[in-house]
């Protein structure tokens, strides 16, 4: 009986409308935040080498969580679908690269947030077909966007400053007196920047989905005809979802290159990655922000864990790689059939069990 709603009466609708109305949830979030800000920067992850914990796990997981929240806004909350996620991230990354060349003195954090707007515009543009087509046809349309943008990333030399290698290489930039990008940037600095941006974007997404805008997205998702008869304009609603979703993808794309990879070419934004992000959304849970965290963390770390297990039993790493692909495939199928709300739902069920414990009825 540790986790419960009973005895915690809400005296106002404001309290009832909070993101985490239950006290135990608030405590849980506080603990996570403390760990993220006070434990990880000093000690990394338990049992792992510090640099590996930050560079290979924490930073990418946090960045992909931003992507997953963004894609979840589109797929989970608005019921549209996109296989262009990686390309929209690419738009963010290339925009950020161009911005750093044009405005070398502007704070890089501002440039990263600005690059999201380019992705938002491109996302909204490629979201236009969603007004006429649904489901499979929309998948094809977004896939076309993916390939068209990939083509742009290769063919338009201006995007990578005509670098003969075709790659964008991240320059060194400082913010608030710290080196945050480039080879000289400390992992812990990059980690803290990414973490803070993620938390900021999580709060915004949480606010949006609980308010008028989020409801209009869910109305379109659940029953577009009824939504329209209530006064929701399908055009603005769908496009706003594409724009916000792509904004998140754009920022995460910029972060991926500037805070993690250090350099990137078109392969970092190919369609395989689009699938990967979609898997994160589905496995984590459609229409859940908590689920987005879980999905990104799980899909990213699962193959790493399997690889370690493989090492213990001296199994060929490529075999383990394929095993993890198959296992994730099976899990996706299972989730789609059995529990469309993914890990987030399982987590919730677990908490509910705890709520009525020790009296199951």
């Amino acid at each position: 009986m540790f986790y419960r709603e009973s005895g915690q009466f809400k005296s106002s609708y404001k309290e009832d409308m909070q993101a985490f109305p239950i006290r135990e949830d608030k405590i849980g979030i506080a603990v996570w935040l403390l760990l993220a800000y006070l434990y990880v920067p000093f000690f990394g992850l338990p049992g792992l080498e510090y640099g590996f914990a930050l560079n290979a796990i924490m930073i990418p997981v946090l960045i992909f969580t931003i992507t997953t929240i963004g894609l979840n806004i589109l797929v989970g909350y608005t019921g549209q679908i996109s296989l262009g996620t990686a390309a929209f991230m690419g738009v963010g990354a290339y925009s950020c690269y161009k911005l750093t060349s044009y405005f070398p003195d502007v704070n890089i954090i501002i440039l990263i947030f600005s690059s999201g707007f380019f992705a938002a515009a491109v996302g909204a543009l490629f979201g236009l077909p969603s007004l006429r087509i649904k489901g499979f046809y929309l998948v094809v349309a977004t896939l076309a966007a993916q390939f068209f943008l990939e083509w742009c990333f290769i063919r338009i030399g201006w995007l990578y400053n005509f670098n003969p290698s075709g790659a964008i290489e991240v320059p060194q930039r400082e913010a608030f007196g710290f080196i945050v990008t480039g080879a000289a940037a400390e992992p812990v600095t990059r980690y803290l920047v990414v973490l803070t941006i993620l938390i900021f974007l999580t709060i915004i997404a949480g606010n949006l989905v609980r308010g008028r805008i989020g409801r209009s997205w869910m109305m379109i998702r659940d029953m577009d005809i009824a939504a329209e008869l209530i006064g929701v304009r399908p055009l603005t609603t769908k496009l706003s979802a594409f724009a916000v979703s792509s904004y998140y993808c754009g920022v995460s794309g910029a972060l991926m290159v500037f805070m993690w990879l250090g350099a990137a070419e078109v392969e970092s934004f190919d369609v395989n990655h689009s699938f990967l992000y979609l898997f994160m959304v589905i496995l984590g849970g459609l229409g859940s922000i908590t689920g987005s965290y879980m999905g990104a963390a799980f899909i990213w770390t699962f193959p790493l864990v399997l690889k370690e297990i493989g090492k213990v039993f001296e199994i060929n790493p490529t075999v383990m790689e394929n095993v993890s692909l198959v296992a994730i495939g099976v899990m996706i199928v299972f989730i789609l059939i059995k529990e469309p709300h993914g890990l987030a739902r399982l987590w919730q069920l677990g908490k509910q069990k705890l709520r009525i414990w020790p009296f199951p009825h």
Partner: protein
Amino acid sequence: MKDIAQGYMTEDGRQIGAVLMELKNITLKFGGVQAITNASFDIREGEIRAIIGPNGAGKSSMLNVINGFYHPQEGEVWFHGKKRPSMPPSEIARQGIARTFQNIALFHGMTTVENVMTGRQLMMKKNFFWQLLRVGPALEEETVHRRKCEEIIDFLEIQAIRKTPVGSLPYGLQKRVELARALAMEPKLLLLDEPMAGMNVEEKEDMSRFILDVNDQYGTTIALIEHDMSVVMDLADRVVVLDYGKMLADGTPDEVQKNQAVIDAYLGVEN
């Protein structure tokens, strides 16, 4: 039929006002199917207007014309004394027309209170940037509308299911939540498509009471489709009868019930 040019007084003493909506010579076709043929009638302010007729008579199609989901090939819709140009349903909702559906159209991924809140969408004005901050005026707005929705939820006696996802509710309650959502829009004209279909006697009585209360307390004009004649007789001020898309009769429940054409086409079959 009594002279009602300037509005009229009902038997139970309610004052019915001027014409709110007028349908003039509506004809609606789906390919070869003629769903509505040259139908004309009006709906007055404060009135409870019933549309009855056998299956496939064109009743739901008529509501769909009224709220702009179908565009008739011929005829005119007049609202508030003005001819209404052809416009998308989302704009017509903005003019104060709300409805419920024959096959419940709730938002299944949301809870009862969230569904009711969707009815307030049009009244919420705080822009995108306030929404993403969700502080100050934006939170205030959300709270004000939430309070209104809770009032409606109390009014329809569905407090117990406030936080329940609507998909898991029994049919009768879903119909009630749908009514709550429509009421949350504070419509001028409320269209109800078979609000009592599939309900038991007790649920029907509850629903009838709610409809009368809505009309009485909020002064909402109501147009409803209903198959149960005893309900229609109890609720409606005036009744339109459709059969194969054609108007058979238009008048008070008593007048309609005595109409020979109606008895032949509809009541004769039912009773």
